[in-house]
């Protein structure tokens, strides 16, 4: 393994981790503003550790939905990590307790970093380096955001109730580089808003999830 390339990987991993750490500050803030405790907020970042799902859960709760509707949305958003796991299994070949440990790092960023390498050793290195760095910065950021927000009497004064849609948009944008995903996104937003007055909070997400699954399944 060349030292030069591991150094480059490490630099990229740290860059990703710092950016995510800043993003985690907004997660901590949104979560506490939604009414979750600091402990609950930190547990999400330690155990759930997959940004989109975490934002979905606290977003649904903050909007007045039940925590279970939020939980289902979080799990649905996390389903893509299972596909990443399949792609990574042959590269990582984790055994025994190592698999339990490696599994926690199977997310967007680590997958992208790992599969970009031709040399499998560098791929594994990239996976673990990105995973470790991200885990540390993600949880530190969460803690900072959560404590800072608890110190504020009314999070609405800082516009924190307007932050979740922007966070979801920032997560969504990189996935919209073709016409089909853009059309799906617009249709999903319209359907969710249309059914919202008629079903309990959080349920519009499940309606949309079912519709897109049916579409994906039967599309040519």
């Amino acid at each position, binding site marked *: 393994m060349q030292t030069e390339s591991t150094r480059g990987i490490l630099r990229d991993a740290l860059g990703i981790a710092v950016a995510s750490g800043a993003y985690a500050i907004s997660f901590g803030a949104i979560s506490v503003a939604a009414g979750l405790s600091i402990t609950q907020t930190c547990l999400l970042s330690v155990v759930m550790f997959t940004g989109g799902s975490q934002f979905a859960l606290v977003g649904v709760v903050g909007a007045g939905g039940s925590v279970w509707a939020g939980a289902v949305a979080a799990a649905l958003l996390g389903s893509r990590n299972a596909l990443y796991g399949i792609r*990574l299994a042959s590269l990582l070949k984790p055994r025994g307790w190592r698999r339990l440990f490696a599994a926690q790092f199977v997310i967007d960023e680590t997958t992208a970093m790992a599969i970009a390498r031709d040399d499998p050793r560098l791929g594994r290195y990239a996976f673990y380096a990105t995973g470790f760095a991200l885990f540390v910065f993600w949880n530190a950021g969460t803690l900072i955001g959560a404590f800072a927000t608890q110190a504020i009497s009314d999070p609405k004064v800082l516009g924190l109730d307007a932050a979740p849609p922007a966070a979801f948009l920032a997560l969504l944008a990189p996935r919209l580089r073709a016409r089909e995903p853009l059309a799906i996104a617009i249709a999903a937003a319209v359907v969710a808003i249309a059914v919202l007055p008629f079903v309990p909070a959080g349920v519009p997400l499940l309606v949309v999830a079912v519709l897109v699954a049916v579409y994906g399944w039967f599309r040519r």
Partner: protein
Amino acid sequence: MTWAGVVVASLACYGLKLAGLSLPERWLQNQRVQRTVPLIPIALLAALVGTQTFAIGQHLQLDVRAVSLVVAIAAVLLRAPFLVVVAAAAATAALLRLWL
């Protein structure tokens, strides 16, 4: 109640990651599964953007959050980093509430 939801959802998300690493490849290698799963985050995130901007609970409501969304879209189009997108949206809502 919140605790139970937080714990169950966290374990479910971890379980999905572990399942990907552990299950026999062919189980999830199905072409339809491969095509469908990546669409779910797109639809869900878009639905979250829509509902969290234009509703409070079960009621549709147009307020400063819509302006915040426009600012966030502009920030995303300008390729601003995550935190800038979120902070710009929050600041927009905060400032508009001060002025209006």
